[in-house]
């Protein structure tokens, strides 16, 4: 009988089997771990979305020092932080930079009663019920999820916003708690003190309960 396979066939077969036994599971594991710890590549993190109006948080929140709640008024009281209506922009910009070209869409919006369509940067799935007010009330810094917006010309997502990200904090909020008074300070996480969960808010008697599914899903 003649040889069916060449000498190199064995090398190829072994390579193939190794791949099957080793590389495929390894690749799956890598995939899984990118899900656990999303990278810039696998998620929307650090992607600066172009917006209809080149609004700069660095300028407004950083250089001018306008507080978050000036525009995101319901962050303290409601589930949603709220996008400012055109009116809010024009409250100032009817006085200053009245002719600026960049602000033309804003003026048009008010003129034509057409809302501005912003591109969403922070978007949770519909089955997740995130409530801003309860986090603000507990003294969770805005920056702990949104990053230091005073450094961002265009707003971008800095945290993965995955369930694990939420759970990490719900189980051990210490790193993110700055107290109610310092919540809006964009740089607080760099400089500020952290509070224990009991110091930050008087009514969390059982921090372990915070990872019940119904905290976020209804």
């Amino acid at each position, binding site marked *: *009988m003649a040889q*069916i*396979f060449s000498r190199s066939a*064995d090398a190829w*077969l072994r390579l193939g089997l190794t791949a099957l036994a080793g590389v495929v599971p390894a690749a*799956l*594991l890598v995939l*899984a*771990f990118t*899900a*656990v710890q*999303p990278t810039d590549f696998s998620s929307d993190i650090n992607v600066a979305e172009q917006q209809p109006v080149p609004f700069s948080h660095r300028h407004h929140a950083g250089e001018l020092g306008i507080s978050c709640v000036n525009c995101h008024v319901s962050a303290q009281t409601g589930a949603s932080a709220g996008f400012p209506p055109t009116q809010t922009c024009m409250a100032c910009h009817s006085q200053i930079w009245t002719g600026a070209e960049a602000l033309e869409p804003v003026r048009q919006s008010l003129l034509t009663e057409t809302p501005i369509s912003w591109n969403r940067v922070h978007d949770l799935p519909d089955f997740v019920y995130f409530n801003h007010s309860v986090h603000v009330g507990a003294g969770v810094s805005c920056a702990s999820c949104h990053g230091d917006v005073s450094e961002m010309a265009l707003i971008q997502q800095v945290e*993965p916003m*995955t*369930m*694990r*990200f939420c*759970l990490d904090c719900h189980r051990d909020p210490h790193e993110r708690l700055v107290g109610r008074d310092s919540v809006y300070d964009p740089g607080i996480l760099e400089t500020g003190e952290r509070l224990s969960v009991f110091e930050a808010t008087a009514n969390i008697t059982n921090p372990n309960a915070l990872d019940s599914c119904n905290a976020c899903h209804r």
Partner: protein
Amino acid sequence: MSPPPSHSIHGPPQAGETSGPYTLSGVTDEIAGITLNHPTRLRWTIGFGICSGLVVLWLVSIAVLFTRGVGVWGVNVPVGWGIAISNTIWWIGIGHAGTMISTLLLMTGAAWRTSLNRFAEAMTLFAVICAGTFPILHLGRPELLFWLIPHPDQLGLGPNFRSPLEWDVFAVMVYLLVSLLFWYVGLIPDLASLRDRARDRFGQIFYGVLAMGWTGSGRSWANWRRSYLIIAALGPPLVIGLEGGVSMLLAGGPIPGWHTTIFPPYFLLEAVFSGFAVVAMLAVLLRSAFGLRSLITRDHLGMLGAMMLITGLMTAYCYAMELFGAWYSSDSFERQTALDRLFGPWAWAFWGAVILNFATIQAFWIKSLRRNGLLLFAVALLVSIGMWLARYMLVVSALARDYLPSSWGDYWPSFWEWTLFAGSLGLFGWLFFLFIRFLPLISMFEIRELVDEDEPGGDQGDRS
């Protein structure tokens, strides 16, 4: 530890031990010839065509299911599990006979298994594949199947290891893989035979790669035998674990008619019983299709009949005990379910199962009857149907009428459930046709071991 007796060429004559005009080359030529020469081309093509048609039906049913949702089935509240689940249990059960024939009989040295084990194992594999499709298809959101498998993820949440369903995910997957592995290890020497006899390049490469360069060296035979025995030894616990898991899928819920401790052995016995029936059917079919009357002898058929009789009677005992248990529990819900099965809306399924499963096999008390191929086939077919009815009754009757009469309901499989079931039968046949086309349907080397080669100048003393 003594080597497994079944490997002895000279052991005491066993029931069905192959003997007769075979020579080593004759065995090889006959069995390999089926694969290499494709002798029944026309009939094979017709059969394969029919099964392919059913596979297409199966695919269409799945397409309809996935586009329109599981609502195309007849399932509802309270009967959320319909024949999808009873089919699963049925198919899984069929699979077990292959494992039992291969492993238990290997370990106990029953040489008559050699004519049956290869295709019985193939049957196991294909039955498990069919079984495995149903639970996936019956999911509301099958695309999220991977959540059943523990893996790191961004949710930080694993599966529920307390759920019998999760056990079954493990059990069925493991069963499938280990059956495949066991089958493959047993196939390696035969694949080498085919490699060495294949005439075309494709066949040589196909069988050559699968044979992994097997030469039949003394060292590899010795290692192979040890390995095969160990894997075989893993089989029965695996089957018991699997049937335990599958039975707990029902018994784990607090539902009258399900919630009893008898279920694991009960399911196991039913499974092996129905499996033997399907092996018997396949044996009769292959025997006549390929003229293997001297390889699959009447003794083999008789043994299968006897096994059906034994396991069937044990199953009947379980039935009786289940009813007794319901009565003895004095629990009115349990009794109600038992009465529903005996005389209520599911009486047809219950008595159908009893008659088809237990009345039929009584014929096998008579030796000549169980050695009759035609009768064996007929009885085996009826038992398969009966066992299907039993599974249907078990799943549906308990769900349809559990505790609160206000939520009692009814269930009838819809068109698309029947087509899916027919499609799964087709899938099984399709795979089986491919198997008999491309792989040796009887283990050549094990038959070779049984060949009583007339050895010129043989020295009996040396051979012991």
